[in-house]
């Protein structure tokens, strides 16, 4: 049974690891994503140069971004930076999961940040996407001064 403590800067440990559940990529996922970002490239529904349809390269980015939710209750946060390396296309029918490691945490100008390296892979463990992201923590009881 997983317990979900509240995510705080102090609770977070550099080196701690996260893993997502496995997600079956469906044509409906790809269609919904295409609507959300208003990108209806024909390769999402028809043949592509790599054989068969492919998903939008960033389709599973939220699986990676939400990794910390697999261990913590996250009060609120903002996404500061995102890096991707698109190794192999994500395709419908794949079962994909993301794994991440907290590689840094720091405070700057009164704000708290965490940095996670991640990889998204298929059911065989083949790497599809890898990268790193930086998230800002918004502690409970505080407001973010929007810029």
């Amino acid at each position, binding site marked *: 049974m997983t317990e979900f403590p509240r995510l705080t800067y102090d609770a977070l440990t550099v080196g701690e690891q996260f893993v997502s559940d496995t997600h079956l990529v469906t044509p409906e996922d790809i269609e919904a994503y295409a609507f*959300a970002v208003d990108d209806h490239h024909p390769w999402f529904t028809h043949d592509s140069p*790599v054989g068969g349809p492919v998903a*939008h390269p960033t389709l599973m980015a939220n699986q990676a971004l939400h990794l910390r939710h697999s261990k913590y209750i996250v009060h*609120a946060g903002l996404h500061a930076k*995102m890096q991707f390396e*698109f190794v192999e296309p994500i395709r419908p029918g794949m079962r994909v999961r993301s794994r991440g490691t907290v590689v840094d945490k720091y405070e700057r100008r009164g704000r708290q940040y965490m940095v996670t390296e991640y990889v998204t892979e298929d059911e065989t463990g083949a790497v599809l996407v890898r990268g790193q992201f930086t998230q800002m923590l918004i502690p409970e009881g505080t*407001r973010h*001064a929007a*810029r």
Partner: protein
Amino acid sequence: MPLAETVAVGQELPALVKEMSQRRIDVYSGVRPRSIHTDEAWARQKGFRTTLAQGMMSTAFASEMMTRLLGEGFIRGGTLSMAFIKPVYAGDRLTVHGVVRETRPESARTRVVVEVWCQNQHGEKTAVGTASGLTEG
């Protein structure tokens, strides 16, 4: 057909315009309470004037621009790095820009490096970064 055959340093890529409707934000982020993306009252409580789009949506827009430019050379072998520097609110209109900054040999191919950024309807940059991908020759 990808645009890559015409790539040259300094070339400005065709801009994309994106209307950031709450409906699209809802589909992207998934509707739930206590979310700055889909719960307006919560977003205001957290200090924002209304709900925000996820920064990640801007990476999708840059990815679209790069896939149009390089095709397979972006979806396999592409990179993208972006910083989210201003909130994007529901109702905003984003224009996505790209300028080719560098081409360099990589194995038997050429890596094309593009400066990318998103700008809102007030002319303010909301996300900035760099993307790259491979093309033949």
